[in-house]
């Protein structure tokens, strides 16, 4: 082991130490206000809500593809064996770690590839009481959908993630639906005999 290995080893160990006491952002107000400013600016830049939702989802996708590395390093989880396990980990470990909330998980169909995360309170929309007039189809937390989708794709799980219910639109809870899609068959290469 050379001298250059020591800094990366230290960083790895410090991440491991952090996982023993998960750190939730102490000043989450700054995150909430930043996110609010982002959505407000997107609303000013784009007239249609579909565009705002689409770009929030895209941004979330970019965050998710990178965040999953950090998540896997901090949580040191073993391989999951079912979609149900994956969804439970997203709810109980990832959401808890980054947002400080734990949604409840329900399975929506018998083939066990459609799940819902039910949140009583979405932390990102804490200060938003209702959507502004004329923006009723805005999905305020679309970023979260994009993050989940991006993270799952980096671990080779294709999924469709959307908001099924939204407290900001008058529903009683916020519900995020995750539908795991069937993977296309991978080509198997055979050595030429």
């Amino acid at each position, binding site marked *: 082991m050379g001298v250059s290995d020591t800094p990366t080893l230290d960083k790895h160990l410090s991440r491991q130490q952090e996982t023993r006491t998960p750190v939730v952002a102490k000043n989450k*107000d700054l995150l*909430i*206000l930043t996110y*609010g*400013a982002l*959505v*407000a600016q997107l*609303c000013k830049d784009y007239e249609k809500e579909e565009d705002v939702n689409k770009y929030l989802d895209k941004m979330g996708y970019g965050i998710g593809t990178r965040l999953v590395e950090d998540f896997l390093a901090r949580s040191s989880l073993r391989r999951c064996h079912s979609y149900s396990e994956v969804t439970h980990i997203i709810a109980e470990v990832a959401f808890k770690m980054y947002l400080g909330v734990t949604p409840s998980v329900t399975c929506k169909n018998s083939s066990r590839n459609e799940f819902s995360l039910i949140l009583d309170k979405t932390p990102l929309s*804490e*200060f*938003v*009481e*209702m*959507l*502004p007039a004329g923006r009723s189809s805005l999905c305020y937390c679309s970023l979260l959908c994009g993050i989940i989708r991006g993270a799952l794709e980096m671990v080779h799980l294709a999924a469709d993630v959307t908001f099924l219910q939204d407290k900001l639109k008058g529903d009683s809870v916020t519900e995020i639906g995750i539908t795991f899609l069937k993977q296309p068959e991978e080509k198997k290469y055979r050595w030429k005999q």
Partner: protein
Amino acid sequence: MAVCIMVIVKENYPFYVRSIPVENELKFHSVVHTSLDLVDEKISAMGKALVDQRGLCPGLLYPTEDYKVYGYVTNSKVKFVTLVDSSNTAHRDNEICSMFWKLHNSYTDVTCNPFPNPGDRIRPRVFDNMVTSLMTQVC
């Protein structure tokens, strides 16, 4: 019971007005407007000695025949003024100050809403409910 609660922003226009009964709102507007000078006077008289970390609570501004007027100024020069029925027994300063602190906390949550522009006169639901509970509670 508090009959009127008004939030006045830095530029000295009312951001939020709530009065019971609603018909007397105009009268309350004039009472609060005249009390703004008193707020400034009391604050400058109090000076730096009594600065609370949350905001200055000069307390009772002046009593009229029907109402007593209480005021509170935040660090960002937003003023909260409340009119309380004179017929009730005297309120302790602490109760009034704690009422203003609750209002202040609610107000900071309202300002964190990303959609309205600062200075827009809005009627936020949670703030409204908080004010209703405070108005019925102060007795």
